């Protein structure tokens, strides 16, 4: 491969014209983030990298999405597993906005109730939690009324 081609390819990976860059995702949660946001269904260009060096996380992942922009409700879903994620909104190769994710007040779907005797773990039901503490994260199940703590959170 010629040097110029390498350069071009590199450019293609690192820069997007218009879209969103999600940075500071914990590497181990990259595929969960992809699944929560349903990125596997996108037809536009997606590039991602994992196990990149990060001062904050030790190892981070990054996702670059061409021509994709998120509503707050949508992107806040990943706050449960990517607390420190940062968004760069790109227009015309320029970062025009930076955003952080916020833990929502209600979590619908996404998370499993930790209680094995909860009806949501025994029948096909969308889970529904009220966030009773954001840090550390405590989620109260609408159905069994038990609290799923941060260290018990598993993605559905």
């Amino acid at each position, binding site marked *: 491969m010629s040097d110029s081609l390498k350069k071009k390819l590199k450019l293609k990976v690192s820069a997007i014209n218009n879209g969103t860059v999600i940075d500071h995702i914990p590497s181990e949660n990259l595929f969960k983030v992809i699944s929560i946001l349903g990125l596997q269904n996108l037809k536009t260009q997606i590039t991602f990298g994992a196990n990149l060096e990060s001062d904050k996380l030790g190892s981070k992942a990054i996702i670059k999405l061409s021509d994709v922009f998120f509503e707050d409700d949508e992107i806040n879903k990943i706050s449960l597993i990517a607390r420190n994620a940062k968004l760069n909104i790109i227009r015309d190769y320029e970062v025009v906005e930076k955003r952080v994710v916020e833990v929502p007040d209600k979590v619908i779907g996404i998370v499993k109730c930790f209680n094995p005797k909860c009806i949501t773990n025994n029948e096909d039901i969308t889970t529904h939690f009220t966030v009773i503490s954001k840090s550390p994260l405590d989620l109260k199940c609408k159905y*069994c*009324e038990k609290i799923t703590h941060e260290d018990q959170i598993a993605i559905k």
Partner: protein
Amino acid sequence: MKKKDLISITDYSKEDYLRILELAAYFERNPNQRLLQGKVVASLFFEPSTRTRLSFETAINRLGGRIIGFSDAGSSSVSKGETLHDTIKMVSNYADLIVMRHPLEGSSRYASEVSDIPVINAGDGANQHPTQTLLDMYSILKTQGTLDNINICMVGDLKYGRTVHSLLMAMSEFKNPVFNFIAPDELAMPEEYKLFLKEKGIKYYEHTEINENINYADIVYMTRVQKERFMDPIEYEKVKNVYILKNNMLKNTKFNMRILHPLPRVNEIHTDVDNNEKAYYFEQARNGVYTREAIIAHILNLK
């Protein structure tokens, strides 16, 4: 009009409690009323609970209603793998009210979302059993004349005992309750309930044995200490006889004090207590029928 359900005791306000307790007193005076005539109540017991089922079915019969349903999941389509969703959908086409007991937690809340007709939770696993709480409150009101300024001693399994948790929440709506928790360390009242009381400024005290504290109590609420709750069987052996109430312990208790127990008991109340006028657990069970008549009347706007 929005349908009323009774899933969790905290779904109801103090006004709802008082209205139901007033109705319970009315049904105690006039137990046989044809208010449910022409109505069908589905009694769905996905796990057996003879005591609760008979209490509900007596209440329905005294109100003149008809009953359909099953008394354990083995005799229903559930054993053929039908989902709770489908069973509830089907039944809500047939009946006017569902009373359900289910081993899984949150099942009643889910059923109330699926159903077009009201649902009464008759116990969902270790989660909620709100009709028990209301009959406990009715028993306290009847024996003490008020729900304010009540000193309640709760004894036994305060960790897993759903009845004590719900009663604690409900009684906290009334003036100046005082709680004494008597339990082994392994079965102590969970932090979340103590925090709830702290935030409401309600006094509580913790003890590991039945001592002179019962002498100040208006209500002694006994629960079963079950062997299967202990990780270490030796711990169970150590404490199993500590939480048994005996007649000679009642000598210096208040004249108005009454002993409650959600039943069935094993050995935590010695049979020598049964003839003491302070033993109230059998009357408490009878109050369950009137309270359940009241709850049904309240939910279906019959009265």
